[in-house]
């Protein structure tokens, strides 16, 4: 018999999931469910939307209103859901490639609008489902099946991208620091506006094997040893940041939310009429 959390929020008849042994996606999905549980949200008032990829399989296992859409278009569908039903808590689950390559345009405009959607990116630095091609977050020099001699492209910092595009809440977590990731997802869901949470996941099968990063434990420990919390990061001299990355709440501002602005416009036009 599974845990109470799993029984309450998962479609247990669909478990075990298809993710590979040691894949971090299951850890991120649990953190998300734990966040929903901590907030005490009504399951029928939550809608989880995904695109295509390993990460995007997650809603199939979750017992909410769920929508598995086309590649890169989770945010476009989620925008429609939110506009039609602004009372719903809309959560998007997407991958690094799904959100920043195929769906990059949808991402920047959802950020710009500051629509009240919480997006959790499962960043495993590769296209896992299709066999380990390099993605926009594969670090420069790292290998993929389509970059056998190393990736020449500079990689995206997704959090900087979301901040620059206008997201009102931006955070990064890891599958090692899963408790902190849960807290960031809670804050993201509570934020009235577009929330972007990058969850650093692991792909031991493709990205890990291709780049000799070791097994699932080695990759998770790497995230433990190289992630630095924002508070400590800000005090760190530049030379000590080499090879490390920042986690925690990175950006939080108040900005007008899209559906509210839209409703205001309709109300003002009705008054005029």
């Amino acid at each position, binding site marked *: 018999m599974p845990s109470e959390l799993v029984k309450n929020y998962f479609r247990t008849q669909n478990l*075990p999931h298809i993710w590979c042994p*040691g894949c971090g996606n299951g850890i991120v999905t649990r953190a998300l469910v734990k966040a929903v549980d901590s907030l005490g949200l009504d399951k029928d008032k939550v809608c989880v939307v995904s695109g295509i990829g390993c990460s995007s399989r997650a809603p199939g296992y979750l017992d909410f209103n769920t929508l598995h859409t086309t590649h890169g278009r989770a945010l476009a569908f989620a925008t429609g859901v939110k506009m039609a039903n602004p009372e719903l808590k809309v959560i998007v689950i997407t991958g690094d490639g799904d959100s920043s390559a195929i769906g990059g345009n949808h991402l920047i405009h959802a950020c710009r609008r500051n629509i009240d959607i919480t997006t959790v990116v499962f960043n495993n630095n590769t296209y896992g489902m299709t066999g380990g091609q390099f993605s926009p977050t594969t670090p420069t020099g790292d290998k993929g099946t389509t970059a056998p001699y190393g990736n020449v492209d500079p990689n995206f910092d997704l959090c900087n991208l979301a901040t620059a595009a206008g997201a009102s809440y931006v955070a990064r977590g890891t*599958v090692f620091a899963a408790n902190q990731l849960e807290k960031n997802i809670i804050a993201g869901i509570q934020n009235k506006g577009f929330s972007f949470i990058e969850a650093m996941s692991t792909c031991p099968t493709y990205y890990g094997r291709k780049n000799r990063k070791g097994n699932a434990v080695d990759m998770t420990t790497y995230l433990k040893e190289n992630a630095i919390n924002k508070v400590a990061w800000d005090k760190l001299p530049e030379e000590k940041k080499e090879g490390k990355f920042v986690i925690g709440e990175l950006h939080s501002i108040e900005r007008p939310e899209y559906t509210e602005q839209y409703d205001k416009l309709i109300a003002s036009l009705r008054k005029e009429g």
Partner: protein
Amino acid sequence: MPDKKEKIVTVEKEWCKGCGICVAYCPKSVLALQDGKVEIVDLEACIQCGQCELRCPDYAIYLREE
């Protein structure tokens, strides 16, 4: 200190894929991999910290409330 019998570490063996994450982060060596699946080898040593449940990607290990 909480009563030691409050929660008990429980394994859902059919869901375990043997990644070893729970074994690696268990601070009290309660767990081990045997024949590709997790085994509870020293239940007495368990301090119910929940590190295993927190990072099990397969929901195959958790602290069950007694």
